């Protein structure tokens, strides 16, 4: 490994969708702190600018705000090309963007095609667009990393939101197959299944403290993860040379909530 130990992504170029808040913002902060130049792909520039400001305040390598709508193929391609034009390479793509619907309970009896599309157009449509537009650059990198953010909901099948569970589960088939396709190009394809105390999670539990206490008991480590430290730095490890031989896998950063195998 050539990169300094404290900067395992030194000089790498990364694009992260949904990086204007939640876990996506903390992924961007963590990758930047590890030495990466980060393309902060967001629909609303002001959210990306806040992420870039945080990166700068932490002494990170800097972030480039990209207006990207993951449901819009042309927008995705334009964002990737702009990042490449700025830095001359792309080594890492993380598809993190998700629809707000995913955070709310939705009875399956009442789920319809419109609700379905709101989630899967981002999750699955975005995955296709990012993979296709990013592939030439990831291949040229020689150490390409394609990562999708999935969820324990997709593995244990959460009752609260069947659409979210299905769309996240489907990414498992996606990464396992694409890993086999892209392996000869030295591109790894993996997913991360996080359990993190995001702002939204904290706000939810703020209303139901008893539920929070009970939920935390389910974690082997006794708590939800910190998005920046526990999830962000896990993503850094996955994108670094340390885990270059891992592909087609899901990295469960969930404090031992779900015994995946």
């Amino acid at each position, binding site marked *: 490994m050539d990169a300094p130990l404290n900067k395992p992504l030194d000089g790498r170029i990364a694009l992260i969708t949904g990086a204007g808040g939640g876990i996506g913002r903390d992924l961007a902060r963590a990758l930047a702190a590890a030495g990466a130049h980060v393309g902060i792909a967001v629909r609303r520039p002001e959210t990306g600018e806040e992420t870039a400001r945080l990166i700068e305040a932490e002494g990170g390598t800097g972030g480039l705000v990209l207006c990207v709508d993951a449901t819009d*193929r042309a927008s995705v391609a334009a964002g990737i090309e702009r990042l490449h034009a700025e830095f001359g390479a792309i080594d890492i793509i993380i598809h993190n963007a998700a629809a707000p619907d995913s955070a709310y309970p939705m*009875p*399956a*009896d009442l*789920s319809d*095609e419109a609700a*379905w599309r709101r989630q*899967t157009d981002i999750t*699955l*449509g975005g995955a*296709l*667009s990012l*993979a*296709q537009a990013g*592939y030439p650059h990831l291949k040229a990198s020689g150490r390409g990393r394609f990562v999708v953010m999935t969820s324990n*909901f*997709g*593995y*244990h*099948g*959460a*009752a*609260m*939101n*069947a*659409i979210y*569970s*299905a*769309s*996240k*589960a*489907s*990414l*498992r*088939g*996606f*990464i*396992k*197959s*694409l*890993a*086999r*396709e892209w392996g000869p190009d030295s591109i790894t394809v993996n997913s991360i299944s996080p359990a993190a105390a995001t702002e939204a999670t904290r706000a939810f539990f703020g209303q139901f403290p008893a539920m929070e206490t009970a939920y935390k008991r389910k974690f082997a480590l006794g708590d939800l993860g910190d998005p920046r430290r526990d999830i962000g730095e896990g993503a850094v490890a996955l994108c670094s040379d340390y885990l270059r031989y891992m592909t*087609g896998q899901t990295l469960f950063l969930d404090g031992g909530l779900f015994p995946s*195998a």
Partner: protein
Amino acid sequence: MAEPAPELVLYTHGLGESGRLLADALRSQGAGVRVTRCETVSRTSLHAAFSDTLGEARVAIVAFAPVDRGLARPLLEWMPDDWRRCADEPQLRLLEILQGLRDALAGRPCSVVLLGASIGMTGAANHVALATATEGQRGLMKALARQWGESWRLNWVSVTAPLIFPDIGYGDIPEQCELGDYTPPLGRRPDWADVARTALMLAGQDAGGVTGQTVIVDGGEWMLP
């Protein structure tokens, strides 16, 4: 002693000859099979079709394949519309099928067994869309098993891909991990009788405490955790 094979409804949209072989295999195990036919996949049409065929049956076996899986090809060659039709819509349509079945049952209990290709669990180059669709369907099954568990059991039989899709050869999917020449642990590849027996086991009350589970019928090839 094993319970008698049940009366069941079978819906195999998109499976063609494999659907007929599955129906025959179920019948050969003594099951009363009422094939539900419905070309238009929507909640409303499936509600009507299941209402016509259910009778007193409280077991449903659904093998819903992507209608058009497209030619096996690298992900880079997929166009967005094809991708949506083959990777995304099969998941949505399965939800609509199960909603239609639930509407037809009108609150009565049911044991549902879903069938899909094991390619989603192993991954396969040139089959990203099929693997994506299948794993999404399996995740949907788990979510519904939790949400509708008061009156339904749902389980999944994962079938080796070349059996369920004859256009996919064993050479088109990943070889298992054993060193050396491959010999199936059971000494043979699985057949439709194996699939039917497994589906009926999961469907019946002998498996009354089982829901949201996946049983892989691949002759022990992968032994996935």
